[in-house]
C-alpha cells in the first residue's frame, strides 16, 4: 500500500530524513513512533504532498506520490497534528465543504456526510457550529473529514493528542473500526500504550531513519525475550535462588517475597529446560514467564541507543 524508498529531506544542513525506507501493507494499522524531531511529521507531510523531498520515492498503491499528485490526493486522507476549523460553519457544512473540495456532488454527499458523522459519534451534532464542539469532538470531526472521499490510506498525525482518557479511548475504537472498512492507517502518537493496543504493526524512526519496523506481535515477543524471567514460588525461595545462581545462563537475579526475577540469557528451549529441572528438584513453582514487553520499553531502549541498522521483524 505504502512504499517509501531512500527518502531524504534536509533543512539547511540538518537531515530531517536520512534515507528513510518503509513498507506498509494494505489493511495495516501502522504505529509511527519516534522522539520529537525524529522526522515523523516531515515524512507524513511529504507523503501527503505538502512538502518536497530532496530525494527518494514514495508510492501509494503504485501511484508515484511526487509525479501523480491528483491521484495521490484521491487516495490519501490526512489529519495534521494541529488543525483548525472554520468558526462560522456548521458541522454538516464543514463536511459538505470538503466533499465539494473533493469534487463530490449530488444527493449521495449528504448521506455520506451523515454516515461519517455517525461513525465518529457526531450524528447529533450535524447542525451545531464547529467552534462550539469540544476538542475531542473536533478531532473526531477531522477524522470524519479525512474519510469523506473514501481514501484507501489515512495519515493521522497525533490524532489523540490533547484528549482526555475517555476521548482517547473513543478515538482508539473508531480507528480500530476503520480497519473493517479495509483502510490502511498510519498513526503517529506519543501515547505508546494505546498504540500498542490498537496497532497491527509498528515502526520506530530516529534521526530520520527507521530503526525498527515490523508486526506488533513479533516485535513484542522479541522484546519479551530480552525481558527478565519472573518466577513465583509458593515456598523454598532461598533454595530456588541458590539453584538459579549456579545456572550458567543466569546473569543476575533479584528476589522479593515469593517472586524471583532472573536476567536469563537463554531462548525458549532453555526456559523449558530450566523450568523442568526446577520442578524435578522439588521447587514449588507456581508461575514461570517472561515479563511482558511494552512499546515504551522498546521505544526507550531503541532511542537511548545511537546508530544501529534497520531491523525488520516479520
Amino acid at each position, binding site marked *: 500500500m505504502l512504499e517509501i524508498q531512500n527518502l531524504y529531506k534536509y*533543512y539547511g544542513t540538518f537531515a530531517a530524513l536520512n534515507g528513510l525506507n518503509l513498507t506498509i501493507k494494505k489493511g495495516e494499522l501502522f504505529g509511527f513512533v519516534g522522539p520529537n524531531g525524529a522526522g515523523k511529521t516531515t515524512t507524513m*507531510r511529504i507523503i*501527503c*504532498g*505538502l*512538502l*518536497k523531498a530532496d530525494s527518494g520515492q514514495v508510492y501509494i498503491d503504485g501511484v508515484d506520490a511526487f509525479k501523480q499528485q*491528483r491521484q495521490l*490526493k*484521491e487516495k*490519501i486522507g*490526512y489529519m*495534521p497534528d*494541529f*488543525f*483548525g*476549523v*472554520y*468558526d*462560522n*460553519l456548521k458541522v454538516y*457544512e464543514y463536511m459538505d*465543504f*470538503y466533499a*465539494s*473540495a*473533493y*469534487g463530490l*456532488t449530488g444527493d449521495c454527499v449528504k448521506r455520506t456526510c451523515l454516515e461519517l458523522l455517525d461513525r465518529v459519534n457526531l450524528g447529533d451534532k450535524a447542525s451545531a457550529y464547529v467552534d462550539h464542539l469540544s476538542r475531542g469532538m473536533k478531532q473526531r470531526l*477531522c477524522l470524519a*473529514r479525512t474519510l469523506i472521499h473514501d481514501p484507501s490510506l489515512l495519515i493521522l498525525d497525533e490524532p489523540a493528542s490533547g484528549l482526555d482518557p475517555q476521548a482517547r479511548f473513543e478515538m482508539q475504537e473508531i480507528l480500530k473500526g476503520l480497519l473493517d472498512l479495509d483502510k490502511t492507517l498510519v498513526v503517529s502518537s506519543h501515547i505508546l500504550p494505546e498504540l500498542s493496543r490498537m496497532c497491527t504493526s509498528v515502526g520506530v524512526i530516529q534521526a530520520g531513519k527507521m530503526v525498527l519496523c515490523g508486526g506488533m506481535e513479533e516485535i513484542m515477543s522479541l522484546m519479551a525475550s530480552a525481558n527478565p524471567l519472573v518466577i513465583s514460588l509458593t515456598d523454598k525461595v532461598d533454595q530456588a535462588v541458590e539453584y538459579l545462581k549456579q545456572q550458567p545462563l543466569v546473569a543476575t537475579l533479584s528476589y522479593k517475597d515469593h517472586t524471583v526475577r532472573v536476567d536469563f540469557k537463554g531462548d525458549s528451549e532453555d526456559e523449558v529446560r530450566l523450568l523442568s529441572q526446577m520442578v524435578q528438584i522439588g521447587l514449588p513453582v507456581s508461575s514461570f514467564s517472561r515479563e511482558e514487553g511494552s512499546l515504551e520499553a522498546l521505544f526507550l531502549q531503541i532511542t537511548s541507543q545511537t546508530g544501529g541498522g534497520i531491523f525488520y521483524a516479520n
Partner: protein
Amino acid sequence: MQINPVFRKELKLTMRSSRLPMILLIYNSVLAFITLLVFYTIIENARWTQVMDYTAVFLLYMITFVAEGLLLAFIIPALTSNAISGERERQTLDILLTTPMSPFRIILGKLMSSISIILLLVISSIPVLAIVFAFGGVSLLDVIKVVCYLVFASVFAGAMSIASSARFKKTTTSTVVSYAGVLGLIVGTVLIVTLGVMVSTVSPVDAPSVILGILSMILLVNPGVTVIALLSGQFSYSDSFPAALRETLNVPPIVSEHWIVLSIVIQCVLLAAMIWSASAALGPKRR
C-alpha cells in the same frame, strides 16, 4: 458546473460575519458624507450667486468616484489580506492543500469571494452614486464605464493582497505589505514621476525629457491615474489628459492617446502575475 467550493465557503462565512454589515455601513456613510457635502456646497453657491456653474457638476462627478475609488482602495486590502494567511493561522490551509483542489482554484475561489464583496460594496453605493445625475450632463453609460473600471481596479488590489497573504505567513505582515503595495501604486508611482519632472527641469540637456517620457509610463500601473484619465475623457475637454501627458511628461503620443486601454491591459497582466504568484506560493514547500 460545480461552484468553486472555496468561493461558496467564503461567501457563507463572510455573509455570516458581523464585520460585513459594519463595513457596508461605514463605507456608504463616508461616501454619502463626502458626496452630499459637495452636492450641498454646489447648491449653496448656486443659491447665493444665482448662477449654476456647470464645472461643478464635473467636480461632483469627479469627487464622488475618486472618493469611491479611494474607499475601495482602503477597504479591499483589509478584507483580502488575510485570505491565505488567515487559513494558515487558523491551521486549515494544510488540510485544504491535501484536497484535489489546485492552488490556482483555491486562489480563484478567494478572488471570486473578494469580487463578490467588491460588487456588494459598489452596488450598495448606487443610491449615493445616483447623486451625479441630479444636475444632468452625465450619461448612464459614462457612469457604468467608471464603475466597471473601479470594480476591476478593486479586483487588481484584491489580487495583490491575496498574493501578499499567500507569500507572507502572518496576516499582520500581509496587511502591511498589501497597503504598502496599494500606496506604492497610487502614490509611489506619482512620486517617482514627480521626482523625474524635478530632475528634468534642472537638467540642461534634452536627454532627461526622453527618460522622463519613459519613466512616466510607470503611471500606467496606477489605477488612480486611469480613473482620472477615464473621468477627464468623459467631459468636453476630452483631449486634455493625453495632451497633459505629452506636454508635461513627454509621454510618446502613441501611449498617451491609448492610455486607458494600455493601462487596463498592463494591469490585467499584473493581475494575472499576482494570481500566478499566489498559486505558486501554495505549491509543495521546499522548507
